[in-house]
C-alpha cells in the first residue's frame, strides 16, 4: 500500500481533553500576566512607602525643629529684653511706678500682649513697684520658687507655667541685679495665651498637635486633646533627657486603644521643657494610604480584566484548536482514503492486466474451435447450432471481460490533468457503466439522454471523470436505502459569450435542506457520519470545474431530489469544429 501521507496518525480527542486544555491555557495566561503585575506593583509600592514615610518623618522633624527654634527665640528675646532693662535702669528708677509703666508700655508696643506686667522686687521678696493690670503692689514673693531661683542665679531666669497669686496660668522672666550692694529682681510676666498660641498653632492634618511639658511632666501649654504625661512615650522622653537633649526624636507607637501615633520630641529651654508633637499615623500617611488604595483598586480591576480576557482567549483558542484537530483528522482520513484508492487502483490495474491475457487466450481458442467446426461436415448433427451458439457466447463474454478490464484500467490510470479533446458523452457513458454495479445493488436506475451533436471539449479527462463519478456516487449514497433514478443529460446551448456544454446529473433522492445548500461546496462540509465522508468531494469538483472556466450549481427540493448543473464553456474557435 502506497501511503503518500507524512502526517502522524491523529488520535481522537474527547471533550475532557479540550476542557483541560482550555483550563490550562486560562491558568497560564492568568499567572503569567498577573504575577509580574503584582510583583512590579508591590515593589514600586514598597519603594514609594519607604520614601514617603521618610519624607513625612523628615518634614515633621523639620517642623518641630523650626518651632523649637521659634519658642527658644521667643524665650531668649524676652529674657534679653528684661535683662537689658535691668542693666540699663537702676533699682531707684525702676521703682518709680510711672517709669515702670512707661517701660511696660514700650515693651507692649514692641511685642504686643506678650508682656503682661512688670514688677520690681527687693531682696526681701516684696514687690516695691508694679506696672500691669493686677493689683500686686506690695505682693510678697519671698516664698515663691521663682523668686528663690532668680535670686540664686546670675542669669535671666524663666519659670515654669504656674497660677501664682493672680490665679491664672502664666510664667515669669526674672533677672537679678544689684543696687548699693543689695540684690533686686526685675520681673516680667509673659502672657500664657500668647505663648500657648505659639504651640497651639503647630497643626498639621486633622490630628496633629503639639504641647510643652516640664521635666516633672507638668503641662506648660494646653494640649488640644487629653494627654496623660506620665504615660509612654512622654515619660520615656523625659527619662531620657540626657540622651535626647539637642536632638529631634521621632518614634511611632500604638496606644492602649490600638491607634498608631507618631511622636516627635525636642527639649527646649536648655533641657527644662519638652516640646512634643504628635499625630495619628493614619492622618500623617493619609496620602500614602490613599495611594495604596488606588493601587489596590487598579490591581483588582486589572486582574479582573486579565482574567476576563484570559477566559475569552482560552475559550476561543480551545475552540480553534479543537476545530483544527478535527480538520487535521479529516485531512488525515482523506489522505488515507486517497492512499487506499491509489492502492486499489494499482491492484485493479494489475488484476485487469492479468485477467486480460487468459481471456484473450480463451477467445482465441473458441475462435479456433469455430474455425475447425466450419470445416467439419456437421450438417446432420443436432448439436451444430448449439456448438455455434456456445462459441458465440464464449466470444461475447470474452469481449465483455475485455470491456470491464479496460474500463477498470481506465479508471485506475494515474491522475492525468493534461488538457485534451474529450468527448463528454463518451466519458459520461463510461462513468455510468462503472457505476452500474453499485446502482444495481441499491435499486437505482441510471439513464441518459445525451445530445449527440456535442462537440469535444478541451479538458482534463481524468479530472472531469472524477467530477462525474463524485456526483453520481453522491446520488447513489442519497438513495442507498430507498433506491431511485439517476438521469444524466447533456445539451449544447448558446451562451452570451459563445457556446456552452450543459451537463445535468439529476436524482430523485431525499434532497438537500436549504440551510445546507449554500455550504455543500465548502471544504470539510459533510452531512455523512464520521468516517463515511470527508466533505472534500464537492469542493474538489467545484475547484476542478472552476479551473476549466465553467460553473457548477446545485438545485434541490427535500424529498424531491437534487440536480447538479455543470456548465463548460467552449472556446469561440470550437464553433468551426462542430
Amino acid at each position, binding site marked *: 500500500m502506497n501511503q503518500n501521507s507524512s502526517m502522524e496518525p491523529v488520535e481522537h480527542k474527547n471533550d475532557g481533553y479540550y476542557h483541560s486544555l482550555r483550563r490550562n491555557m486560562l491558568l497560564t495566561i492568568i499567572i503569567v500576566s498577573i504575577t509580574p503585575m503584582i510583583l512590579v506593583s508591590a515593589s514600586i509600592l514598597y519603594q514609594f512607602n519607604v520614601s514617603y514615610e521618610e519624607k513625612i518623618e523628615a518634614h515633621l522633624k523639620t517642623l518641630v525643629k523650626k518651632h523649637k527654634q521659634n519658642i527658644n527665640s521667643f524665650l531668649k528675646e524676652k529674657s534679653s529684653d528684661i535683662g537689658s532693662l535691668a542693666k540699663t535702669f537702676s533699682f531707684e528708677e525702676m521703682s518709680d511706678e510711672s517709669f515702670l509703666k512707661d517701660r511696660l508700655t514700650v515693651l507692649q508696643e514692641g511685642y504686643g500682649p506678650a508682656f503682661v506686667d512688670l514688677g520690681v522686687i527687693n531682696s526681701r521678696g516684696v514687690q516695691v513697684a508694679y506696672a500691669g493690670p493686677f493689683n500686686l503692689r506690695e505682693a510678697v514673693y519671698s516664698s515663691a520658687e521663682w523668686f528663690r531661683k532668680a535670686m540664686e542665679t546670675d542669669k535671666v531666669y524663666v519659670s515654669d507655667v504656674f497660677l501664682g497669686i493672680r490665679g491664672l496660668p502664666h510664667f515669669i522672666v526674672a533677672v537679678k541685679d544689684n543696687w548699693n550692694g543689695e540684690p533686686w529682681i526685675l520681673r516680667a510676666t509673659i502672657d500664657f495665651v500668647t505663648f500657648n498660641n505659639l504651640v497651639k498653632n503647630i497643626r498639621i492634618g486633622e490630628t496633629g498637635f503639639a504641647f510643652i511639658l516640664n521635666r516633672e511632666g507638668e503641662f506648660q501649654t494646653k494640649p488640644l486633646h487629653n494627654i496623660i504625661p506620665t504615660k509612654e512615650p512622654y515619660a520615656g522622653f523625659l527619662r531620657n533627657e540626657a540622651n535626647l537633649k539637642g536632638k529631634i526624636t521621632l518614634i511611632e507607637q500604638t496606644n492602649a486603644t490600638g491607634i498608631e501615633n507618631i511622636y516627635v520630641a525636642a527639649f527646649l529651654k536648655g533641657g527644662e521643657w519638652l516640646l512634643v508633637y504628635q499625630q495619628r499615623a493614619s492622618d500623617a500617611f493619609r496620602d500614602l494610604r490613599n495611594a495604596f488604595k488606588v493601587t489596590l483598586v487598579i490591581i483588582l480591576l486589572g486582574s479582573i480584566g486579565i482574567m476576563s480576557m484570559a477566559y475569552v482567549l482560552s475559550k476561543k483558542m480551545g475552540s480553534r484548536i479543537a476545530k483544527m484537530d478535527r480538520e487535521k483528522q479529516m485531512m488525515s482520513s482523506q489522505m488515507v482514503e486517497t492512499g487506499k484508492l491509489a492502492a486499489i487502483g494499482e491492484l485493479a490495474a494489475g488484476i485487469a492486466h492479468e485477467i486480460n491475457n487468459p481471456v*484473450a*487466450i480463451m*477467445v482465441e*481458442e473458441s*475462435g479456433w474451435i469455430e*474455425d475447425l467446426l466450419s470445416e467439419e461436415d456437421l450438417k446432420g448433427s443436432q448439436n451444430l447450432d448449439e456448438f455455434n451458439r456456445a462459441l458465440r457466447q464464449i466470444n461475447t463474454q470474452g469481449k465483455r471481460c*475485455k470491456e470491464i478490464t*479496460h474500463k477498470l*484500467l481506465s479508471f485506475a490510470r494515474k491522475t492525468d490533468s493534461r488538457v485534451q479533446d474529450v468527448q463528454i458523452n463518451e466519458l459520461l457513458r463510461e462513468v455510468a457503466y462503472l457505476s452500474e454495479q453499485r446502482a444495481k445493488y441499491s435499486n437505482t436506475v441510471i439513464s441518459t439522454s445525451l445530445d449527440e451533436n456535442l462537440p469535444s471539449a478541451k479538458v482534463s479527462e481524468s479530472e472531469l471523470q472524477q467530477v462525474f463519478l463524485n456526483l453520481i456516487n453522491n446520488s447513489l449514497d442519497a438513495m442507498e436505502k430507498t433506491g431511485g433514478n439517476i438521469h444524466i443529460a447533456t445539451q449544447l446551448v448558446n451562451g452570451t459569450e459563445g457556446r456552452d456544454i450543459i451537463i445535468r446529473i439529476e436524482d430523485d433522492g431525499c434532497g438537500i435542506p436549504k440551510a445546507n445548500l449554500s455550504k455543500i461546496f465548502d471544504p470539510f462540509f459533510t452531512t455523512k457520519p464520521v468516517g463515511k465522508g470527508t466533505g472534500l468531494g464537492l469542493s474538489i469538483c467545484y475547484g476542478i470545474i472552476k479551473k476549466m472556466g465553467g460553473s457548477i450549481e446545485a438545485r434541490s427540493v427535500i424529498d424531491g431530489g437534487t440536480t447538479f448543473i455543470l456548465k463548460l464553456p467552449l472556446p469561440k474557435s470550437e464553433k468551426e469544429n462542430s
Partner: protein
Amino acid sequence: MPMANVLLVDDEIPFVEAMSRRLKKRDLNILTAFTGPEALDLLEKDRGVEVVVLDVKMPGMDGIETLGEIRKKFPLVEVIMLTGHATVETGIEGMKLGAFDYLMKPCDMDVLLDKLKGAVARKRKHEEKIIEARMKEITTRHA
C-alpha cells in the same frame, strides 16, 4: 488474403499458439517468438518476414524496445502492436516509433486480418519503390 510471412511475438505461449493456428488456417505463413531477442534473431535469419505482431508487455526487452530495434535493423518490416492493457502513452509512443497500428487484446480476427492486409500492402509498396529507385540508379550509371 495472399500468402504473407508474419512473425507473432508474445510471452503468452498459449495465446501465440492459438493465434498461430488460426492465422495458418487463413493461409498465412506464421513464425513465432516468445521474447524480443528471439524475435530479432528470427528476423535476422528469415529475411522474408513482412509483418510482426508484437506484444507490448514482455519480460526483459519489452515491446517498445523491440519495436525500436526492428525499425532500426529491419526498416521495411511493418509492426502491429498488441497489448492486454491500453494506455494512451504507449499507443502514442508506438506510433511515433513507426508502428503500423495498435490493437488491444483480445482482438477480433477480422480486424486483425484487416490490419495485416494493410501492413503487408504498405510493406510491399515501399519495397517496390526502393527497387524502382535502385533500377533507375543502375540504368543511369550504365547509360
